[in-house]
């Protein structure tokens, strides 16, 4: 057991730290969910890609560095410690790209990955539907075969589609076999958000900005070349990378460690008030626990293990930690905490953590049933 980085890992860390120190904007960018902020974040992504820091774990031919999993975690830690902007390309690079690498054709990889890496094309996820949230497999949006044109026709509605207000492309599952149930008969589609028949209705979030949107599909034609994986196999295509190590399952500790460090600084700058000591200590302790836990997971993955259901253990922990850290910061700030600023923005963002990507209630069910082996409850 050791926590030591190799010489090449240390060199990678030093290089990342140096570049970030020289290039991270000194002032925070405007919210990525405003038109000017979205553009500013795209420009930042282009700058990252040019220096090959946008997608470090991707192959070099797609603007990556072929970085190892350990290096990726190191990069993430440095990235957030440097106070670098949030990733407007997150849906694409963390959620979709593993599926493209695993299931996409060479043509699709060449067509989609480079512009994803540079931030030129921003992708929006389109998983949820009005009647399919945590219970994703109950989705009803349809895809009908159109042999004449060599593709599919999409009809239906998606919602809570992150980034869709300004993004260029979307990806999601549609029911391509009319009488299929649950996770059978689904197909994974990619589609331009300006395609004929797609209507994007932005939805303002708690922070007032349209971070997600509703998508309406009215006879939207998608050619076969934009189907990811085999038709009818959409569920397994989506799930094949659901536990992907470089994504939302193994959420890197960088962001939480950086938040904890800033909270400690905030506490000190307020004169280290004793009544906040325990909460600040617990924030630091939680981030440290998460960092070490992640290294344990990474060690197993590097050795060929899988993340398994650890993603559910993870998710409950980091999302609750993130909310608690921001609440502590706001309480420390006192009356001025209600003013919009980095801590309030971070707090509003953190509130979505226990909800998205499977609510924490669903994650606790997974922990109880899949890890502890408790009996499944009846599901309709």
């Amino acid at each position, binding site marked *: *057991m050791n926590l030591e980085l190799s010489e090449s890992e240390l060199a990678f860390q030093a290089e990342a730290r140096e570049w970030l120190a020289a290039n991270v904007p000194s002032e925070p960018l405007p919210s990525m969910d405003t038109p000017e902020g979205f553009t500013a974040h795209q420009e930042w992504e282009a700058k990252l890609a040019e220096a090959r820091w946008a997608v470090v774990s991707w192959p070099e031919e797609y603007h990556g560095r072929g970085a190892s999993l350990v290096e990726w975690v190191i990069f993430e830690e440095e990235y957030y410690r440097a106070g670098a902007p949030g990733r407007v390309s997150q849906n694409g690079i963390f959620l979709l790209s593993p599926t493209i690498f695993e299931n996409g054709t060479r043509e699709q990889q060449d067509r989609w990955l480079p512009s994803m890496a540079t931030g030129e094309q921003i992708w929006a996820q389109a998983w949820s539907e009005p009647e399919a949230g945590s219970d994703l497999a109950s989705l009803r949006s349809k895809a009908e075969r159109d042999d004449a044109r060599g593709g599919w026709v999409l009809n239906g509605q998606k919602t809570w589609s992150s980034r869709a207000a300004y993004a260029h492309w979307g990806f999601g599952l549609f029911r391509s076999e009319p009488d299929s149930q649950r996770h059978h008969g689904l197909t994974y589609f990619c589609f331009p958000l300006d395609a004929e028949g797609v209507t994007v209705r932005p939805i303002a979030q708690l922070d007032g900005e349209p971070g997600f949107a509703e998508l309406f599909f009215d006879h939207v034609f998608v050619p076969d070349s934009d189907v990811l994986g085999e038709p009818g196999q959409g569920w397994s295509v989506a799930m094949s990378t659901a536990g992907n190590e470089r994504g939302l399952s193994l959420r890197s500790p960088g962001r939480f460690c950086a938040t904890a460090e800033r909270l400690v600084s905030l506490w000190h700058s307020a004169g280290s008030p004793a009544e906040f000591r325990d909460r600040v200590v617990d924030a630091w302790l939680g981030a440290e626990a998460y960092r070490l836990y992640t290294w*344990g997971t990474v060690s197993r993955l590097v050795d060929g293990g899988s993340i398994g259901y650890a993603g559910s253990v993870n998710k409950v922990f980091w999302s609750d930690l993130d909310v608690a850290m921001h609440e502590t910061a706001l309480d420390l700030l006192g009356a001025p905490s209600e003013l919009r600023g980095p801590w309030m923005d971070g707090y509003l963002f953190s509130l979505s953590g226990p909800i998205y990507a499977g609510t924490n209630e669903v*994650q606790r069910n997974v922990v*109880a049933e899949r890890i502890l082996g408790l009996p499944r409850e009846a599901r309709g």
Partner: protein
Amino acid sequence: MDFRLTSEQTGFAQSLSELMTRADSVAAARAWAAGDHGPGQALWKRLADQGVTALVAPEDEGGLGGTVVDLAVAFEVLGHQLAVGPWIESAALFPQVDGGMVTAAAPPLSPYALDADVATLVSGTVGAAHVSVDTTRRLVEVSDADPVDAEALDRATLATAAQLVGCGERLLTDSVDYVKQRKQYGRAIGSFQAIKHQLADVRIGLDFARPLVHGAALTMEPRAVSAAKVAAGDAAYRSARVALQVHGAIGYTAEFDLGLWINRVRALVGAWGDASYHRSRIAEALG
């Protein structure tokens, strides 16, 4: 970078665990609480033969020259199997190369000496005896104890944290087994979400406490040791509370073994520095 236990360490844990199960460590604990030290002393000797008390003693002094991670591995098992006797004192605080059973007070962190009626007191004079909530822990006051160096105290604290994780794991395992077979309203109570979510939170708490224990064992930084103690105490205590709740009245009886761990956890949460002490140490280290 490889933040996993080695196969030697997991193998060592397994062999200690099997040894203690075969020796009926729980029966030995009950006897110990009743004043019969025989079975506990026999088990002590068998564990000492496996090198538990000599783990972190240097090789040139006749010890095994192991790491503090090895120590943490052993103490998690000792917690899981409800070991009795002054293990923290004899394996972490003052490692014994000959398997001896020693005890000590280290005020203010550890104001009482444990099991001074059977163990050799390292320094000081024995005073009044006190009754612990954990009846396997026989505590006495000690006057004029020699000061203990900070490194040894941190080893003892870390061993306590590891023991707490072991206790928490045992309480969780027993709770999961129980809620799978206990039926009410025609269903196993483990199928109710109200039960599931509490146990899931216990699982999550323990999963994040253990890396802090192992991480602290690697560095032995004071703030890391304190973080391990706080997190292990919180996780084990949550496990104890949930274990009692999901067992219901049977868990509240002295006859049922579960209570032995519940009371052990309550005792260890305050031993070798309570959460407030360790949080203040972390706060100081954070500047």
